[in-house]
């Protein structure tokens, strides 16, 4: 029997309220190590909130979050946070040039990987933008810079919140290509939040479906698409309104 690989994250009874109506309520979730884990769901399902919790950017009100089988309480140690990088749905550019943005993570860690920097510039077609003011970039350019910035420090875990929303096919292709490469060549564990069912089919190894702050179901990607168990998952995958 093959040895079982411990999950990357385990969530037990995670609860958090956001404002008046919305509440994140995840009874149990194991996120496997390695590969792409996709989280699908309609707007307001709690996907982005879950990503922020997985990045230890905000505390929970109840429940336990385990990382590599160790319970982590908020605030998480800086060393642990630095093993994770996230690309937000709306990329936030820091002031200054694209170069400043791309090297920011390395500078706060007092590291410098010029070969990594150069290869990301090339791979994400950012060479011509390196001295441009970051806040003047188009949506697609900013999203590519945000991805390169996140990857510059070689994170073990990459959290992506709708990384290709509203982008043109060229930018989608570039970003999907690099997600595949870093996941399969560099062994990065990627957690991808998206609305795009087809993107999940293209990229993910495992998929989960969330609605109303709750996890509905999850599984290996083939099983998830071929044998969805919950009628809400079936409805979402067939393009019906859920939530």
């Amino acid at each position, binding site marked *: 029997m093959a040895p079982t690989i411990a999950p990357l994250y385990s969530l037990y009874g995670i609860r958090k309220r956001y404002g008046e109506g919305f509440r994140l309520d995840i009874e149990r979730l194991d996120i496997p190590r390695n590969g792409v884990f996709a989280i699908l769901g309609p707007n307001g399902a709690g996907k982005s909130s879950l990503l922020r919790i997985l990045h230890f950017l905000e505390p929970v009100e109840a429940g336990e979050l385990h990382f590599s089988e160790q319970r982590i309480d908020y605030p998480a140690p800086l060393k642990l946070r630095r093993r994770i990088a996230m690309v937000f749905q709306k990329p936030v550019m820091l002031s*200054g040039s694209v170069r400043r943005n791309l090297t*920011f*993570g390395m500078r706060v*860690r007092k590291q410098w990987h010029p070969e990594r920097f150069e290869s990301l510039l090339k791979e994400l077609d950012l060479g011509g933008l390196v001295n441009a003011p970051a806040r003047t970039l188009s949506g697609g350019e900013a999203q590519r810079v945000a991805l390169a910035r996140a990857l510059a420090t070689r994170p073990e875990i990459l959290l992506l919140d709708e990384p290709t929303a509203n982008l043109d096919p060229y930018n989608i292709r570039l970003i999907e290509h690099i997600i595949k490469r870093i996941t399969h060549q560099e062994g990065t564990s990627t957690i991808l939040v998206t609305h795009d069912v087809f993107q999940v089919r293209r990229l993910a190894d495992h998929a989960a479906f969330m609605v109303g702050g709750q996890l509905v179901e999850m599984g290996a990607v083939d099983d998830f698409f071929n044998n969805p168990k919950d009628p809400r998952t079936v409805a979402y995958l067939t393009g019906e309104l859920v939530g």
Partner: protein
Amino acid sequence: MTPLTEIVLLTLKVSGIALGLATIVGVPLGALLGLSQFRGRSFIVGLVYTGMGLPPVVVGLAVYMTLSRSGPLGDLSMLFTPAAMIAAQVVIALPLIAGISMAAVDGLDQAIRLQLRSLGTSPTQELFSMLLEARLGVLAGIVAGFGGIISEVGAAILVGGNIQGKTRILSTAIVLETRRGNFGLGLALGGVLLSLAFVVNFLLMRLEARWRWRRR
């Protein structure tokens, strides 16, 4: 050195040191207040905002009583020295710089803070990175602090004593010459004070313009 040069240099020295000290303390204090939530924060914020409107003469009185021979710091023998004037000017400028820095940091999009954390900043790096993002507002606070002390006269006269060659600065010299009826000299000194304030503000604005371009 002419008496006017002496007065101008002392004005620059007293206000420069006071502005430097108030900036070193006020900017991080403002950033901390802008970024943190704790019990009693609103009380401290209220104190800072009240401090922004402190009348210089009241500050002068408080510093005078603190430094006078019977006051708690009387042993330091600081009264009627430039050091006493610096202390009073720090008290005037500090709340202005801290309050405006706090508002500048507080007004930043919280998404920037999350982004900084996500990029692996330590709490100290986060604080200074947020300050860097809010640098135009912080600079406005420093300019306001400078404006508050370069021209103030109440505190400088009370704790400095307007002693020729020792604690006489431009604003106190203007008061003296006006009292003596030397309105022409008073006006000329006023012109020097205004020019000095303009040059310093112009340099700070040049810095702001450079930062504004870089912020894009």
